[in-house]
């Protein structure tokens, strides 16, 4: 039960973060160059993503669970550690925090500088940027939905969590009529990184033949361990950054 709730929260948070980033791109292009071609690009990318999930999700349910958990665990670990690594580097000041307002202005300037589509009814620049933005951000969500959903046997729930997050972000974006700069995106990415790494560890070890002490409840212990380690590493890196600054100032 608890792992099902965590699954929902993990997919919801990951989808919300990626949807916020995709919304920034779509809004910037749509505002500057018009909505028709932009929305066609969004629709086309959404169809491709739905096809990926529809093809891979049910197919993976036919793979034996121990093999599936080993492969999914390895992939999730490699993938989750990337998220967590970036989140810790951002939190400790070694990498710039993502700012949707700045990203929006950059996309808007690029869209304005791109060549006009002239008399053609289709603006291929808007279509391509919107399609690519939604597809690339959405592929990470599709990957998380397929891996979490098939390994836990709750593909429908994982899809529902992703769709709910995307709908929520789009509705808020329409109401706000701007990029969602107030969403605590960096904190959400940190949390998603911890969850992806924890589930990757849990399933990867199970797939390799481990019996977790306490059974499925051990996932809570793994999450606690990864979270505490991430906090400790963030603290150590912050200290290292301060020491680096001091040594530069003294030199």
């Amino acid at each position, binding site marked *: 039960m608890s792992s099902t709730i965590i699954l929902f929260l993990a997919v919801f948070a990951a989808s919300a973060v990626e949807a916020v980033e995709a919304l920034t791109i779509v809004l910037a292009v749509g505002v500057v160059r018009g909505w028709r071609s932009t929305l066609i690009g969004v629709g086309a990318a959404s169809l491709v993503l739905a096809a990926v999930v529809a093809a891979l999700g049910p197919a993976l349910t036919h793979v034996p669970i121990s093999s599936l958990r080993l492969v999914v665990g390895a992939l999730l670990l*490699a993938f989750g*550690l990337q998220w967590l690594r970036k989140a*810790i*580097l951002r939190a400790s000041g070694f*990498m710039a925090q993502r700012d949707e307002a700045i990203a929006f202005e950059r996309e808007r300037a690029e869209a304005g500088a791109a060549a006009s589509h002239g008399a053609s009814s289709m603006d291929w620049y808007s279509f391509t940027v919107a399609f690519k933005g939604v597809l690339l951000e959405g592929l990470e969500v599709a990957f998380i939905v397929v891996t979490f959903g098939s390994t836990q046997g709750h593909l429908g729930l994982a899809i529902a969590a992703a769709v709910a997050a995307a709908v929520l972000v789009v509705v808020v974006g329409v109401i706000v009529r701007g990029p969602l700069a107030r969403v605590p995106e960096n904190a959400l990415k940190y949390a998603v990184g911890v969850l992806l*790494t924890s589930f990757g560890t849990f399933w990867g070890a199970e797939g390799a033949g*481990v019996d977790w002490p306490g059974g499925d409840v051990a996932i809570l212990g*793994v999450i606690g*361990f990864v979270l505490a380690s991430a906090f400790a590493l963030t603290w150590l890196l912050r200290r290292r950054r301060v020491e680096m600054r001091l040594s530069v100032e003294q030199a």
Partner: protein
Amino acid sequence: MSRLRTFGRFWWDFVVGDDWRVAAGVLVALVATKLLTSSGVNAWWLLPAAVVLLLAASLWRAAGKSAAR
């Protein structure tokens, strides 16, 4: 050929990312866990420990590179 390379590059970046040593370390840790469990040792502790060590090493390398710039 260049399209194939771009496609491969995309999936490499998607799964492996900035530090290939982390992905390689994950594979080694999983293989070691499999070998231990096959020989009767319930090595549940190995993967969490490996994950934290790999993450710490990768972060230290990234911080060092950032300082060198």
